[in-house]
């Protein structure tokens, strides 16, 4: 119970802090009126236009003081109303409903690839720590960390989509199969730095776990190497990996802004970049809220998994 209360409180505080900063920052970033009314709104002078402008400002409450507007926005948001896009008057909710699932699939896809590759890789390197395979792996993983995602995207796209034509060049989602194949390259691009991060962390933790007495005990019991690695060493070594897994949700979303744009994937990352350029605050703010909720939710989940990984972790501690 204490855990639930604490998590909810955490969510509220994070949401407040993030939206307050985002709302305030966007407020000083430019005049949304331009996007609501088009160029005539600003360039044409004359009483008839002034009236239109005043009407629009009133409709979107642009003249109210900052705290009032923030308060109104929070109130609407809590009832599930994120307002309408300044540029095309579509409700932000329908934009989210439309774009968010694509991005969620992409994020989950990237995390699944990252875990599926990094965990076996880390087990392999830790079991031969400081030998050739491990040292070579260090070079490979630092390379993976060093390549910028946008460059990797270009490389992957050119090789696998254009040159060898293994994967489609444009996003298709008629079937699940199409969705997974067309999201494969972007997911790999997003997963690459994660794979390297996870592999480094898990390898280090595994190496230190393998020094533990209970590993010697398991070896003295004559258990096979693979068994000791998987059934004794792996679980107590997953803590750093899990912690960073939760934190990486944020950087994945940052990465998706770039990757979705480069691959022309109609997800929320693509949408929010466009929205920023056209000063479409309601869309940007809604995405900020969604990202914050997702971030807090994933990290609450991570806390729950800690208790599963180690029975000594107190659920309500």
């Amino acid at each position, binding site marked *: 119970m204490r855990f639930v209360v604490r998590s909810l409180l955490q969510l509220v505080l994070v949401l407040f802090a993030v939206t307050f900063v985002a709302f305030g920052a966007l407020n000083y970033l430019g005049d949304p009126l331009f996007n609501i009314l088009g160029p005539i709104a600003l360039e044409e002078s004359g009483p008839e236009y002034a009236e239109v402008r005043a009407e629009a400002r009133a409709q979107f409450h642009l003249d109210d003081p900052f705290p009032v507007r923030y308060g109104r926005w929070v109130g609407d948001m809590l009832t599930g109303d994120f307002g309408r896009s300044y540029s095309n008057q579509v409700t932000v909710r329908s934009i989210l409903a439309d774009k968010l699932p694509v991005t969620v699939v992409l994020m989950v896809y990237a995390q699944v690839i990252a875990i599926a590759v990094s965990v076996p890789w880390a087990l392999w390197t830790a079991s031969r720590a400081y030998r050739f395979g491990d040292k070579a792996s260090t070079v490979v993983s630092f390379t993976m960390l060093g390549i910028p995602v946008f460059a990797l995207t270009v490389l992957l796209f050119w090789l696998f989509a254009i040159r060898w034509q293994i994967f489609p060049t444009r996003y298709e989602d008629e079937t699940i199969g199409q969705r997974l194949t067309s999201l494969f390259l972007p997911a790999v691009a997003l997963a690459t730095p994660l794979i390297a991060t996870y592999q480094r962390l898990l390898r280090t933790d595994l190496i230190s776990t393998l020094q533990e007495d209970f590993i010697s005990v*398991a070896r*003295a019991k004559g258990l096979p190497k693979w*068994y000791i690695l998987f059934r004794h060493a792996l679980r107590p070594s997953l803590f750093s990996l899990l912690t960073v897994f939760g934190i990486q949700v944020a950087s994945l979303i940052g990465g998706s802004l770039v990757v979705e744009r480069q691959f022309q994937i109609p997800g929320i990352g693509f949408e929010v970049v466009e929205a920023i350029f056209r000063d479409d605050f309601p869309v940007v703010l809604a995405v900020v809220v969604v990202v914050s909720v997702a971030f807090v939710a994933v990290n609450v989940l991570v806390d729950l998994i800690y208790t599963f990984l180690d029975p000594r972790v107190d659920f309500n501690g």
Partner: protein
Amino acid sequence: MSEATPLLELENLSITFATPGGPVYAVSDVSLSVERGKALGIVGESGSGKSVTMKAVMDLLPSTATIGGQATFDGTDVLTMPSSRRKHFYGVDVAMVFQNPMTSLNPVKRIDAQMTEGMRYHRDLSKNDAKKRAIELLELVRLPDAPGRMRQYPHELSGGMRQRVVIAMALANDPSLLIADEPTTALDVTVQRDILNLLDNLRTDLNMALILISHDLGVVRDRTDDVVVMYGGRVMESAQTEDLFADTRHPYARALQLSIPDISKPRGQRLDPIPGSPPDLSSPLTGCPFAPRCTFAQDDCHSTLPVATPVGDGSHTFSCLHPLGQEATV
């Protein structure tokens, strides 16, 4: 020791560790043996090589270690055993109990899983049979409420209870040799004797050989048939336990005896500690390793390495140039 073929016999075992600062000669020229059903004590202070020697037998040394000499278990050369023999050797023929019960159990696995995995792997027991046997073993080591403990995690048990679990685990596949490496050092004094007596009883009841490693000569005194006293990676003196106490030849073995607290001694009498600290093993020794701390050392002790010298029938040997005579013993 006596004429019967030993169960485990080490001959001239040497262990060197490669370190960034050069080789460390952790164990040199150690020979010892234990017979079926008998108990051998290995005594020495930290760094004397007693644990490392047994870890070499258990194949628990890191890859930086180089092992020389021979180790034979029941006719099999342990150090060069084929993998088919190895597969069911550790945890079946030989089992080991470690010093610290607080860290010997995997903190994230329940007792039943840790108890049964060895039986299931080596003997292909079904889950249920293995659990039944696990409960029997836990009762054998007199763990209170054995069936109830099965679903618990190690942190829910006290140190003494955990050491009982570790011992029960080691007994899972009826080993003919149990190596106990300072099994009570990390435990409360009140629990220490219980665990030692338990090991002693189990050895007799299960007709299993026991190697009891300790830094305390008092611990092995009443519980072993033979004793090997090690110092600086070498065997100083090796004898049947009563002979070692009755007819001590090596000054180090003598010094160890004098540092045992004895409740029958008059109050206020001080223990005799051994001054100095163990030798640096990063260069090969030219003389007796104990010479710098030995009150009986003479000039040649620093330059001549003493060899094992037999007393009487040869079951008692010592490595000292200027041994204590009969008259010098207690």
